[in-house]
């Protein structure tokens, strides 16, 4: 995309000098992309804070916010944000100033950076990575550093407790979480999220979750995701009835908001990742977008029309976001329903239930792949089944299997 931009700039009179400095274009383009993602994610986070309050309100027989921004309190997140910005920013006397200040941003970055590798629709990704799954897991795992630093640097015993719990909990839950993520990766034969999602194209019967192993894995994945993002019933690092506020005890104002946003970012990230890996990504349960585009081509629109691709991608992105929001709502529902587990019970849940179950699912998936397709990648099986028909199809509408297979072969 940046290269297209450079070519385009070369043609515009007066911008030639920018096109010569390729790195400027790359930098500017990167900033634009990050701004877009940040806008999307931050909007979602703002909506989530409002939604959390509304959902908790409804569950608890209350109304939730009703004052700011009309009847449904739409502007509540803005009011909250403004209030947090106006709050006094306190660094405790016993705190390690630099680390204390750095921790919230580290935490937020770790939750946000994985979005750069997360595709929202085919091609709509900041940095297409063949190892996107690995990248997201690796960067997402850094979140724990922010929390540990916050707990250590606060100079408060409660914060320290929160940090130690976070360390124990998140590091443990990353093992089953990683195993759960490997299951769809094995099924797809690639770590490229775009390809994983595109393999699930068509009706919802093509989704990975239809596979019984993947279905079971999805539930383990959701448990681990809830635990990995410190959400109830696994919200021990910030257990307010035991540790006051855990690692966030000494934070106020904007730094506290960074932790808060980081939590929602991470929740949304894991929900989106789960949607891509298990629930078809941007493919709806019924391939309406494909029909629409197909219909438009029948009416005479060129198949590679930018507008058609844009509409298809936009619908796909909406699909994915709806799935992510549903995942987040599930986590909120759990939070407002269940009591909190104890630290030893959290570890038991992880080591005694999640890890063995995830291992069984992993081995089961491997076995089923071996038995069903002799260990070959899914597209290889597909190609063997219908080679001539697929070619014809590709000729006709320019979309479909072969282009996808060639990309598949690259990774």
């Amino acid at each position: 995309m940046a290269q297209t931009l450079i070519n385009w700039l070369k043609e515009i009179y007066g911008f030639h000098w920018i096109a010569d400095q390729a790195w400027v274009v790359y930098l500017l383009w990167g900033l634009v992309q990050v701004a877009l993602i940040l806008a999307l994610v931050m909007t979602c986070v703002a909506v989530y804070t409002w939604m959390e309050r509304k959902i908790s309100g409804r569950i608890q027989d209350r109304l939730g916010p009703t004052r700011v921004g009309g009847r449904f309190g739409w502007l509540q997140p803005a009011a909250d944000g403004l209030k947090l910005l106006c709050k006094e920013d306190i660094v405790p006397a016993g705190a390690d100033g630099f680390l204390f200040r750095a921790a919230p941003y580290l935490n937020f970055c770790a939750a946000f950076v994985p979005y750069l590798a997360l595709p929202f629709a085919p091609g709509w990704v900041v940095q297409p990575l063949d190892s996107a799954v690995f990248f997201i897991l690796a960067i997402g795992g850094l979140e724990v550093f922010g929390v540990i630093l916050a707990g250590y640097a606060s100079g408060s015993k409660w914060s320290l407790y929160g940090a130690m719990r976070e360390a124990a909990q998140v590091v443990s839950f990353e093992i089953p979480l990683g195993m759960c993520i490997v299951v769809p990766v094995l099924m797809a034969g690639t770590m490229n999220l775009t390809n994983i999602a595109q393999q699930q194209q068509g009706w919802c019967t093509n989704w990975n979750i239809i596979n019984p192993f993947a279905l079971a894995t999805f539930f383990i994945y959701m448990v681990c995701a809830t635990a990995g993002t410190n959400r109830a019933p696994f919200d021990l690092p910030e257990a307010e009835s035991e540790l006051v506020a855990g690692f966030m005890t000494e934070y106020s104002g904007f730094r506290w908001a960074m932790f808060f946003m980081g939590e929602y970012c991470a929740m949304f990230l894991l929900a989106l990742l789960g949607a891509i890996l298990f629930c078809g990504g941007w493919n709806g349960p019924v391939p309406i977008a494909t029909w629409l585009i197909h219909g438009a081509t029948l009416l005479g629109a060129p198949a590679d029309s930018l507008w058609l691709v844009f509409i298809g991608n936009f619908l796909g992105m909406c699909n994915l976001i709806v799935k992510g929001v549903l995942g987040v709502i599930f986590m909120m529902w759990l939070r407002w329903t269940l009591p909190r587990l104890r630290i030893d019970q959290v570890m038991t849940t992880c080591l005694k239930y999640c890890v063995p179950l995830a291992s069984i699912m992993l081995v089961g998936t491997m076995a089923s792949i071996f038995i069903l397709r002799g260990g070959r990648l899914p597209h290889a099986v597909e190609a063997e089944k219908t080679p001539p028909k697929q070619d014809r199809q590709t000729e006709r509408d320019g979309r479909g299997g072969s282009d996808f297979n060639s990309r598949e072969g690259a990774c």
Partner: protein
Amino acid sequence: MPVERVDPDLVEFDLRSDEMLVNMGPQHPSTHGVLRLVLRTDGEVVGDLKPNIGYLHRCAEKIGENLSPRQFTPYTDRLDYLASMNMNLGWSLAVEKLLGFVPSPRLNHLRVLVCELNRIASHLVAAGCYGLDLGSFTPFVWCFREREKILLLFEELCGARLTYSYITPGGVTTDLSKGWLARCETFLREFEPVIDELHATLTSNAIFIRRTANIGVLSPQMAVDYGCTGPVLRGSGIDWDLRRDGEPVYTRMYEGYQFEVIAQVNGKYPHDCPYPAVPTEAVLGDCWHRFYVRMLEVVQSMKLIRQALEKLGKNTEVLAEPIKLRQKLTAGSAYLETEAPKGQMGFMVVSDGTPVPWRVRIRSSSFCNLSVAAELCRGCLIADVPAVIGSLDIVLGEIDR
């Protein structure tokens, strides 16, 4: 200096290098008021716990020695502010015992009615806050929603939402207003299904059971030794309730009322309602049982209220005025314990014949109940401390007086 059972005040100087001294409170979300717990912890494990009290001391007893009994009634409101009616009742009955006053039937029914309503309100706060201590927000709000209805009833009755001063030596301040009985009946009807919801979200919730069963086990012997009373005592399986076993001055109030004392005797709770069975993990005397006893007591209180409503509906008697504001007291002393929601609340009044008592002494139930906390928390995890303290259901206004 021996480390075993060292005075926890000195623990700070006796800390092993891998141990940490943590102050839980007085500003802490789950110490139920201004209680300060000093914990000696080794990682997540609590070695020693020492409750520090006195942050809410308001010299209630000394004030009682400077005011006449009726003037002191509002101060009893502030003892257990979650069950002010029961505090008023304890004080009034103690004074009435000194005076040899015999209440009329209507007065008795009224007192049973408001005291049991307040017991429900108090147990609702206990149950809701206990959920909150364990990280479950929703039951807390549900409990407070129901409690609000009781408070509205009380507000209509006496104008106050928490500090009622309704029951006072020699009577009550005012009779029921028109239609109050019907509104109380409506409340009971609405409240009944909520109990099942609370059982679903708390009592029989798997995580709740894991957090409370076999935690903070209080043996019957220990409960008696420490002077625990109320649901804490009955949670340990001791069948003792002053409403049935108390002094005649108190029990005659409940004459003609049918109710059961909730305690597990011979491995069985005395109820035939379809309430969740005791989970296999639960041990008699643990946090789960203490919670369960409260939940079942709420049902018994509802039973008592229904009977009181019926009796009051038939009764057309006109209430007499309470004793005069500065009525001279009989010389002598009287001590009476009553069954408040949190345990046995004792009031002692000593008089030399003047309108103002010579000495007032209050026995707090929460104080004794809290005293077992150190024993129960030894060797548990930090997360269990709120679970144990919450299950004891203490109110600091009553402990510090």
